[in-house]
């Protein structure tokens, strides 16, 4: 893959940034200073930087030797982006409209937008069944505190659980 080196390169940058974060670690009690809270993370970050540089170098050399990509599987970045975006929207919506409505919308959207299901019976029926199932198991039987949303939606969900 032509872009394989991007992963270790990104790791290197992330590790360099986190090194700066680790430099500011401060114990709540200043007594165990011989090996402080930053000691172990810094060793790991240094090791990650060295190893990822090695991996970048190796990937780049490999790229020169066989410039033609051997990958066969096709990749649909748009599908992935839509799926991830819908999930992110779902998580964001949980606090606003609550678990029940958010889950219904999320499942319908995934089916319709990502998997291109066109039969409306499935797009609306499956989420209804699944959400009811999760509702019964997690909320009714196990009492898991799934979000109720806020404002008007909170009042609505409080009627349900």
């Amino acid at each position, binding site marked *: 893959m032509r872009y394989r080196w991007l992963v270790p390169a990104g790791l290197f940058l992330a590790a360099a940034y986190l090194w700066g974060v680790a430099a500011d670690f401060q114990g*709540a*009690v200043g007594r165990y200073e011989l090996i402080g809270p930053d000691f172990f993370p810094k060793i790991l970050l240094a090791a990650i930087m060295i190893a990822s540089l090695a991996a970048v170098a190796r990937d780049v050399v490999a790229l020169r030797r066989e410039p033609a990509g051997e990958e066969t599987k096709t990749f649909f970045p748009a599908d992935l982006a839509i799926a991830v975006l819908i999930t992110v929207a779902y998580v964001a919506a949980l606090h606003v409209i609550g678990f029940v409505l958010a889950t219904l919308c999320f499942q319908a959207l995934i089916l319709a937008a990502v998997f291109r299901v066109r039969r409306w019976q499935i797009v609306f029926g499956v989420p209804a069944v699944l959400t009811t199932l999760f509702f019964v198991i997690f909320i*009714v039987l196990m*009492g898991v505190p799934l979000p109720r949303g806020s404002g008007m939606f909170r009042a609505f969900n409080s009627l349900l659980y």
Partner: protein
Amino acid sequence: MKRFSEVIRGISCSVVAFLAISAFGTASAADYPCSSVEWIVGWGAGGGSDSFARSMAPGVADTLGVPVRVINMPGASSIVAQEEVLNRPADGCTIFSITPDQLTNEITGLTELSHTDLQPIMRAHVDIGMMHARKGGEFGSWDDVIAYAKDNPGELLVGGTGAASFDEIVVNIVFGAAGVEFRYIPYEASKEMHADLLGGRLHVVYDEVSVLAGMIEAGQVAPLIVLAESELEKFPGVQAARDLGYQVPPSLWRGAAVKGGTPADAVKMLEGAFMAAADTEAYQTFEEGRLLNLYPGRLGADGFAELLAGEHKMYADVISGLNAN
């Protein structure tokens, strides 16, 4: 098979009751401003705070006339739960389990939230702490510990749970009062600490009576001093910190609070309901079983608020002393 069917009935009854309550919860709410109350516990199921809430909730529900559901929201010594409670409206429909961790979290800067964001309802009990050594080990008495610490400055290994935690504060107050040097070894979970004590790798550990009672009874662990004003009936012969002339460190307690700014009448009703619940048989059995009744600990809303302010100052002093060292 009789008992089996009883439990089946028990389970199905509670499920049915629960469904009924969730569906028609509004029916029975006569005076209390909420149709149901959620009690959020910031610790996992089965722990001390969880068992406390579950033994208390039925009694509270009976007095209030609305169902009280205990919900576990563990994470970051109950900071996650505290955030959740403070994000909800201040209507008295959400109760929060409060422990000294709220004070230490605030003092050590783990969270921006303060205990003053909460309105105390009641302190239910105290869990008396003791200093323990291994039975049959090198320390037969508290004097042995002090003598060892004086002969070997800084060599005495004292275990406790958490760093910059309630345990560390207590250990510092006690050994500060005794005037000896020691090394505090922080543990994440008390089970590892107990294994290290029994395995002879720690000299002394701090822990609450409720946790170690079984090991004391079984003759594995010996209590050396009890961190209270006077000896306990349950452990005769174990000297009290006060009798040694020490400042008595704060005890671990458990209580309930709601979000600050909750209407006064709701607070009043909750306080009454909690006080009544503390007298129920279910709760009394819980206290007895865990040895939480060795020392009077019940406080109403006002007394509890005063106590919080006082202990906040005491903890803050100890922690700033730790950082100065």
